[in-house]
Every structure is written in C-alpha cells, then in structure tokens.
C-alpha cells in the first residue's frame, strides 16, 4: 500500500550514543531480563505495560497515548549484520546504508535529491542543529542547518535596512560561481547562495507560528519546536532531521538516572511536537521516525551498559499503523550474539524502505542499496 497523502513529509530524529532498547521497551515477563539487569532492571510496578509481554520505561509515559491510539509503531530487534560496536561507524552505516564500504552519501540526502531533483527549493531538506549530519550529506544537495530559528539570517548586524540590502545584493553577486577555484570553493559559493535564499524564507517562519504548546527547555526541545515551526510554514520542506546532541545516549555509567532523563526528554518533546502539529492542523502529512545507532549489551556492567547491537526504533504519526514489528530478540543464553548482544532480526533498511516506498512514494531500492522487506507500519 502506498500512502496517498499529498506532499508527505519525513521527520527523523537520531538518539545518538546507542539507546538502551532493553530498558526502553521492556520484556517484563522474561526472567532473563532480571538476570541481565541486576543493577538496572526497572521495578515491575513502574513499568507501563503495552502488551502482556512488553512495557515502556516509566519515562516514556507521554508516548503511551499514541500507542493507545494506534499511531506508534515499535520496531524491535533492529540492526544490521555484523553490527559494529563503534558509535561512529555504526552511525555512518545508518546514515549511508553502507555496512561494508565507507559511504559518504546520506540516505536522506538521496531522498532530498529524489524529491527535488533540480534543487529548486533550498529548503527541501532542513537540519535542526549545528553542522551537517551525514544522513543528509550528498554531493550537490543543499541542506539548511538551523541551530536556532529565531536568530537565523545573513549580515544581521547591519542595522540600516538599505545598507543591508545593498550588502546582501553584492554578496549574492560575489558568490556567483568562479572558474578554477576548486571543488571546496565551489561548494562554499553554492552554500552561500543557498544560505542567502534559505535565510530569507526561514526568517518568516516564527511570524507564521501561533502555539501554546510548551517544549522542554533542552536542546532537543528547541530543535523539535523549530521543526514544528518550519513544518507549519509550508515552505515545501519534505525532509527534516535532528540529532540528540553529544552522543548523549551513551550510558556506560550511572544509567538509572541518566537514561530516565534522556527518555523523558524524548517522550516529552515528541509528545509536544505531535500535539503542536495536530493543533496547527499540520499532522496529516508528517511521519516521524526515531532510532539509535545500536542497542546496548544485555548484561549491565553494574552501573551502565556497554555498546551492543540489536536495538529498537519507532515511527509515529497520524498515518502510522501502531503495533509491534519484528521479533523481540531472545534473551535466552545461547541466543545472544558473541559478546552478549541482542540478535537483530529486522534490518534498519526495512523501515527505511517502508518510509521511502510507502510513505514518500519513492524508489527505496536505489536509496537503501537493495531489496529489503517493507514493514507495513504505514
């Protein structure tokens, strides 16, 4: 089934650092869970049951209502073959869909190019945060990177409007392509022109946004609020991306408090985002996917958890068919991978395929590099 929604938008959030899937969606009836999580097991009376086998970490409470509505899909046991335990390699693999080679082209960069092949809209893809995440990187694809929407603009210190207009005009002409200056210079000139165009358009977003919804005053809250504003403004943005900063899900130590705070930040702000776009009447054409580059080891280390493989990902939105997708990785001894990690049974390129084929209406195969079975969560 391909979605018939007009102008579908894909929002993606990376929970970078390796989110502990086992303590996010918890197999609370599995006795092995208690054995592996002697220090970090969530007390049974605090777990929020969602099925007779599985329950949410208590900090995930704000997302429970989307589960009840049938608008939250949970993809269990997600990963890829021979999972890398390196954050950077694993993030790169999720970003590029290249588990064997070093890829430099991001899957969402390809999506932006497929949606807008001539690069007619500099805001087809927008990143919320500083820098350009590899998921969005593709030669010749413009991505606006917005650290803070409220202060975004070029030569903003020139107070006199006529003087600023003149300077911006000269800037635009100076950034025209120059011959023989090399690939990096070409790239900077192109980026400059795109920045100029994008900033003009983006600066109008806050004025179009009226909302009472409150987000947490964290980096994630700021990024998701900016995301809601840009989505609300109808600039033709089709791909939006953000990352939890600082690899913050890397909970090797003191996980019990730290992980609860992190999940709360995710749950509160995604709830705020969904509530916001629903109230703005803009939720019909948006699906959000959030994931982490790997899960964590089954056995805790007494204070935290080390890098693992199989993890959990989520899709949320008004057109999402809620439910459990994939199998929960077995915790039985002998069923774990070498090193004590959860076996993946869903390749991350399967939900990518779902999102691309069934939501965005694109040819997933060329973007994710092969045929992967779609999960029917759209």
């Amino acid at each position: 089934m391909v979605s018939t929604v007009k102008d579908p938008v894909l929002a993606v959030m990376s929970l970078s650092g390796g989110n502990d899937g086992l303590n996010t969606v918890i197999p609370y009836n599995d006795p092995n869970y208690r054995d592996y999580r002697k220090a970090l097991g969530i007390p049974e009376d605090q777990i929020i049951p969602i099925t007779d086998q599985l329950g949410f970490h208590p900090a995930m409470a704000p997302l429970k209502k989307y589960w009840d509505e049938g608008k939250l899909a949970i993809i269990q046991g997600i990963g890829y073959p021979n999972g890398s335990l390196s954050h950077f390699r694993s993030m790169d693999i999720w970003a590029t869909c290249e588990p064997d080679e070093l890829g430099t082209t991001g899957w969402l960069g390809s999506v932006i190019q497929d949606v807008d092949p001539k690069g007619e809209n500099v805001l087809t893809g927008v990143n919320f945060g500083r820098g350009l995440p590899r998921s969005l990187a593709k030669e010749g694809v413009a991505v606006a990177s917005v650290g803070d929407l409220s202060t975004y603009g070029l030569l903003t210190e020139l107070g006199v409007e006529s003087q600023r207009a003149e300077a911006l005009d000269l800037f635009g002409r100076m950034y025209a392509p120059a011959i023989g200056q090399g690939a990096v210079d070409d790239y900077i000139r192109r980026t400059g022109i795109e920045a100029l165009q994008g900033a003009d358009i983006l600066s109008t977003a806050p004025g179009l946004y009226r909302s009472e919804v409150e987000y947490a005053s964290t980096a994630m809250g700021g990024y998701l609020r900016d995301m809601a504003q840009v989505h609300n403004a109808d600039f033709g943005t089709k791909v939006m991306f953000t990352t939890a900063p600082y690899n913050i899900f890397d909970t090797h130590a003191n996980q019990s408090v730290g992980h609860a705070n992190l999940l709360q930040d995710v749950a509160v702000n995604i709830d705020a985002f969904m509530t916001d776009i629903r109230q703005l009447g803009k939720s019909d054409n948006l699906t959000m996917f959030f994931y982490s580059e790997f899960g964590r080891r089954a056995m805790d280390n007494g204070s935290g958890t080390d890098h693992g493989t199989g993890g959990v990902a989520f899709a949320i939105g008004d057109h999402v068919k809620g439910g459990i997708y994939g199998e929960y990785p077995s915790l039985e001894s002998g069923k774990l991978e070498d090193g004590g990690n959860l076996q993946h049974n869903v390749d991350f390129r399967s939900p990518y395929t779902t999102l691309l084929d069934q939501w965005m209406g694109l040819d997933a195969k060329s973007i994710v590099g092969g045929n992967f079975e779609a999960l029917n969560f759209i």
Partner: protein
Amino acid sequence: MADQEIALMAHLLRRAGYGASRDEIEAKAAQGYDSVVEELLNPGEDPGIDEDLMYRAYPSYFDKAAIETGQTEWVYRMINNKYQLKEKMSLFWHTILCAGDNKVDNARTTAIQIDKFRDYGMGNFKDMLMMLSTDPAMLYYLDNIESHKTAVNENYGRELLELFSIGVGMDNEFNYTEDDVKACARAFTGWNLAPTIPVFPYGRTPFEFRFDPADHDYGEKTFLGETGNWDGGDIVDIICKQPATARFVARKLYDFFVADEPPVPAWRLSEPRDMAAIKQLEKAYFDSGYEITAMLTVLFNSDFFKDEAVRFAKVKSPADVVIGTMRMVGDHLEPKPGLFFVAMEPKYMGFDLMNPPTVEGWHMGREWINSGSLIDRINFASSMLGDTELPGVKNIINRLMNLGDVPSPEQFLDGCLDLVGPMELAQETRDQLTDHLNAGGALKHSTDSEKGDFSRRAGETLQMIATTSEFQFG
C-alpha cells in the same frame, strides 16, 4: 620587504598560531623564517595570566564552575599567548583526545585537561598518553571510573586505540582486534578517581586521579601480539612502538597544519594525501623516541609545508575564524568585559570547545561549512572587520591612506587584500568589488570629511572581503 617573505610568514603564523597583526607579520618576516620557527618550537616558560586582571574582568574566573568561563579563558589565551604554537597545540590535542564537559559536568576538571594539553602538547607522545590515561576528565568521560576487575567497561580501552593512538586501520588492514580492545580495557581497570569532596561548603573541586590496586586486573593479557601481565603503562609502551601510531600522529599533524585529511574512521581504506610527507614525519617520530617537537620541526621546515599550493587551501576552523579575526583587528588584547560573547562564537560555528559532538571530535575541512555555520562565520568576521574603531582596522586604514592621494579602486582593493592576508580573490569576486568601489566615486582622503568617507568605505570593503568564499580558507 619582499612580498614573498611576508606571504610565507603570514602562512606560518596562521597555521602555527592564530595569525597576527600586519605589524607583527612584518617584524617576524624581517627576523627570518628559520629563526621564527625556532622560537615557535622552543617556547619559554608560560608567564601565565595576570589573575588580578582576570578576576576583575571575568568575576566567575575564580572557580570556573561553568564551562563558558573555561571557554572564555581559553579564547583569551588563544588571542594573547605569545607562545602561539604552544597554544595551538592545546587545541590540536583537544580535537583528537577530546573529552566533553556535557558529560564530565565539572568545568574546572575539563579546563585543567586543556591546561595539560598545553603543557604536554609539544613533549613526548608516550607522556601524553600516560597523562591522558590518568586524566580525571578523560577517565570520567569514557567511563574508566566504572571499569572494574570484575566488570570491565571497554569504553576508554576502545577509544584509546580507535581514536587516540593507533586508529582502526591503515594500508587496507585493521590495526587491532576486538580481543586487543578487551585486553587494553582490562589493563586500565582500577585507573580511577579519588572520592570527590562534598560540594558544601566550599563548592565543587576538580576530580583527582587515584589508582585502586584492589580493582586492577593483574592477570595475563595478550595485546597486539605481546603477552604479559600488562597494566596501562605497558599498554601505552606497546602502543607507542606501533608503526600505526607513528602513522596516526603524523597524519593528524599533517591534517591540522598542512592540508585536510579525511576523518580517522576512513584511514584504513584511504591513503594519505602526501605519503612522502607522512613518511618523513613517521621517521621523526621513531628517530626521536616519539617526540612531538621533533615531528613539528620536520613539518615547519619542510617544503610540503611552505608549498604555495597548501596556502589558503585549508578551510579555517571556527577557532581560526574567530581568533584570527580578533588578532587581526586587535581587540581583547587585555582582560576586559565582553570577551564572553566572542568566546561563544566558535560554538555557533560548530566548534563548541570542550564539548565535542562525540568522542570522535569534529569533522573538519569542508565539513565546517554548511549553510548555518557559513552564516555565523560571515556575520562574525564581517562585523569585526567592518568596525573602523578597532585598532587593527584603524591601522589597516592608515596604511591604505599611504597608497597615494587617490588610489584607484584596484589599488585600494589590492591594498585591503594584502593587509588582511596577503590573500587573493577569484577574478569574478574581484570584479564585483571593484565595480562596487567604482560606483562609490574617487577614494580621496585629504580633508576631514574625505577621510571619514575613506574610512567608512575601507570598513565596508574589509567587511565584504570577510564575507567572501576565499576568506573561509586559511
């Protein structure tokens, strides 16, 4: 003074430091390249900062409780440290051996790590790794404090190999195995922190290293093919003698000072840009017994460093943009309020000092530039260079007036480019600027009103130069 000598000296001072005012570039060019390199490589005792003045200008300097205070102090040192190479080496090591205060959450501990990078940065690489392995910020950041004899935490052991010394691979081969990671992590069990002193009543104190023999795994380990009852010090010894470690340090130095290389995870499959240069640096590493200054000596005296092809071919890091601009315009040369806002600029451009995005550090080169960061770079540099009240800008304007009674737009533009570089623009960019200058009429500066107009137009021109694509290179 020959233009060539000025250009070479400006290149050296931009790379081995954060650039300089035109007066300083000329003085150093007169002193001679070899002598200046010698000075950079042999910094004297750090005179430190006048703490009384620091307290007065930055009251929170006292205990550096917030990371922003540490960032402000560091930016102050970058602008003002007369031993510029020594200062820049602290940034070099931070970009590699990085810990993030977003996790350490003890800003003074994090800032002390940077001070140690300054002290050890031009010494022996083995000492550097030993310092790092006992550094409280690092042990906390990579969870070695949670690595116990009975429950090993691999985080530090892994990153020490993957990102801090050997690198994942070279010449298409892997440099180590998962078993090496485990052995390495075991050897560092018990390398821990002393219990912290309660916050009350005196506030937070920096973390301190403590070795806990009861929590150390004294068992036999096989690491990179060598078997013994290794502890962390033995691991560092074994690491330092690996050819891959020489390659790692050489390639990192080349990347930072000469020309951009891809990030470390790509090094297994990607050849160095200039293998001959890397080999020279590797040789200096082994010949000197791992001395960083020996490698730097080779680097700064080499033809591959002086080569005109590498000048203005590196995308400036945000630190180079911000500090280089400050040194050029001559602001904050003494402690005074307002530096905080300057010190936050690298963060806005994607270089949050002491808060790397991940333990891999920052992706550099062209990855510094995206539409968001480019806007920040342009806005900052153009606002500083356009401020005709700043001493460095005034100096440039005075020198422009010496070009002649009525310099032509071309002469005027060339003068500006010479004084902020010397740098060149693409012909297409030049044409736009000379057209703009032509449209503004003759550049006279005889009367007071003409002088004012001349200064304003100089400011505007410098401002527009700071927005150019070419200005993003250093």
